């Protein structure tokens, strides 16, 4: 059997993603141009493909989370974030903070898609002396702004970064990726209060709500709902979207950016996602924080991913 480690789309996104923000004015999914949607869908497909390849090398890993969050990561890295691939420390870059360190597999895939990490380096994921450890660390990986993993840290750091950038006259934005499990942490809510108090319109939080955490389903571990009302009551501009619908994500990020410019209010995009999204074999498997995938299943996963992306029935 031949294996297909190469993703079926040929063009990665441009290595420099400096955009004119004034052009991003869509306010509903219907207003988002189709080419933006297709470009982002393609990026998400490649991110998922990279994640499956990395998971296969390890024989395990947080593949389910990477697949679920791929559309969020593709939207940020492919459409929203201002960066220079060749200069990860460029002062005028936007900051993307991965609070959930174990999502690093998805983040590395996005960094490869963005041209910040070489694609061929991805196979070193989780290996000794790799720049791509299992849990993301700023001291290891170019483009990794913080060391996440101790959950509940990212949003506090993001508040400081947003304050510091604003004080220094920068128009850079700060994006913090967190998970619904992280909403258990009190520090997340300290930071949510702080961001609202300091009117941090340059801060956007994106919450992956996959309804799953280490010990089981979120509503059985520690009930976090009603999540939308919580963020609204903390003063944030709050949107809740299907986190696996690229058009909806693009529209939500556009709205968040416009809102930020208008009134200096932090934005949160609550993204309902499906663990294993894009690979029916995994979508339908019993959900687990650390998903089990047999050696012979990886190729099936890739085939199903490609078939789904190309609009065909699953193999």
């Amino acid at each position: 059997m031949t294996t297909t480690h190469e993703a079926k789309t040929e063009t990665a996104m441009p290595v420099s993603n400096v955009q004119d923000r004034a052009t991003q004015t869509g306010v509903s999914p219907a207003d988002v141009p189709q080419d933006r949607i297709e470009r982002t869908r393609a990026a998400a497909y490649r991110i998922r493909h990279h994640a499956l390849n990395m998971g296969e090398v390890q024989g395990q890993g947080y593949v389910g989370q990477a697949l679920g969050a791929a559309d969020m990561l593709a939207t940020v890295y492919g459409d929203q974030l201002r960066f220079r691939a060749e200069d990860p420390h460029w002062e005028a870059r936007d900051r993307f903070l991965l609070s959930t360190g174990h999502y690093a597999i998805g983040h590395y895939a996005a960094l490869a898609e963005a041209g910040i990490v070489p694609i061929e380096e991805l196979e070193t994921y989780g290996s000794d002396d790799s720049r791509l450890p299992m849990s993301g660390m700023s001291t290891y990986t170019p483009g990794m702004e913080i060391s996440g993993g101790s959950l509940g840290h990212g949003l506090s750091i993001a508040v400081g970064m947003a304050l510091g950038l604003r004080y220094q006259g920068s128009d850079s934005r700060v994006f913090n990726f967190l998970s619904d499990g992280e909403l258990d942490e009190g520090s997340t809510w300290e930071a949510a209060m702080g961001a609202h108090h300091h009117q941090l319109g340059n801060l956007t939080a994106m919450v992956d709500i996959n309804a799953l955490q280490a010990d089981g389903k979120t509503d059985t571990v520690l009930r976090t709902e009603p999540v939308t009302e919580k963020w609204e009551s903390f003063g944030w501009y709050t949107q809740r979207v299907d986190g696996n619908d690229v058009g909806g994500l693009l529209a939500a990020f556009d709205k968040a950016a416009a809102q930020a410019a208008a009134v200096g209010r932090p934005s949160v995009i609550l993204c309902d996602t499906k663990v294993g999204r894009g690979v029916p074999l995994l979508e339908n498997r019993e959900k687990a924080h650390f998903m089990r995938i047999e050696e012979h299943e990886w190729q099936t996963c890739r085939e199903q991913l490609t078939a789904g992306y190309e609009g065909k029935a699953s193999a």
Partner: protein
Amino acid sequence: MSTTTEAPDTTTAAKPKLKTSAMIASFADAGQKTSSAPFGHALVKAAQENDKIVGLTADLGKYTDMHIFAKAFPERFFQMGMAEQLLFGAAAGLAETGLVPFASTYSVFAARRAYDFLCLDAAEPNLNVNIVGGLPGLTTGYGPSHQATEDMAIFRGMPNLTIVDPCDSIDIEQAVPQLAASEGPTYLRLLRGNVPTVLDEYDYTFELGKAKVLRGGNDVVFISSGLMTMRALQAAKALAAHNVDVAVVHTPTIKPFDAATVLAEINTDRLAVTLENHSVVGGLFETVASAVVTAGLGKRVVPVALPDQFLDAGALPTLHDRYGLAVDRIVAKVLAELV
């Protein structure tokens, strides 16, 4: 309109007035020369020369002398509310953007409550985050909720962190710009309010990472840090009356520790005594002890330190006497050792 108010019964004998912890919360001696809010003024001065310096606090600006900075530089001061995890996470975020934050709260909250944030957000990436901790050791009578008797024990295990335990206003004034200039995170055991001025009487300047011999002596050598250097100097003078000649070595930087200077002073036949405003566990005494053992000196070291227990509430002079930090207690301990 006239009213008749029943006067309280004052016929019983007046009770003796009680000492309260709120009334006696200073370790300065009566009539001692002091300097007001040396940290706040030093930070303002440093900030005038370095526009990257910013300040933040967790609802304790007035109680950590940060209010001086907030008044001088309102646009560079960030109030984070009573949220210590946010305080230090945000301080790390500010440092990530190239700024030099000084973040103040009480030492108990920095060390106990926010450790994970300081460790992973500031120390692991080696950011220039400067922790300013009020009420270190036994400098409040409010009991264990406020007494950071084990702050150095907690913080010494944190890689990359520099720990400074200043003696007086001179130490603080000279340390602040050096903390701002040094790479990596630092922890300052803050002395606040009217802080004694002691070291101006000696040929002394604060140098980060250096221990200094303040006075020589043939019989005993004191190795001390923080406000206990003030007590060590006072005890040395008192012991002179007993014909005991005492040297005092001040080690304001606890980590990295100037073992070379300290070991050279300890490696004599003098009685060696450490003095610290901290638990006997994990502070200056154990720092010195590990240096002595590592060097293979086989030298006995006597600790003057707080006991390994949760301390009482009360007035500071009462508590310093009770737990052995008062000058008289130090003198008695040394004389007993020399018998």
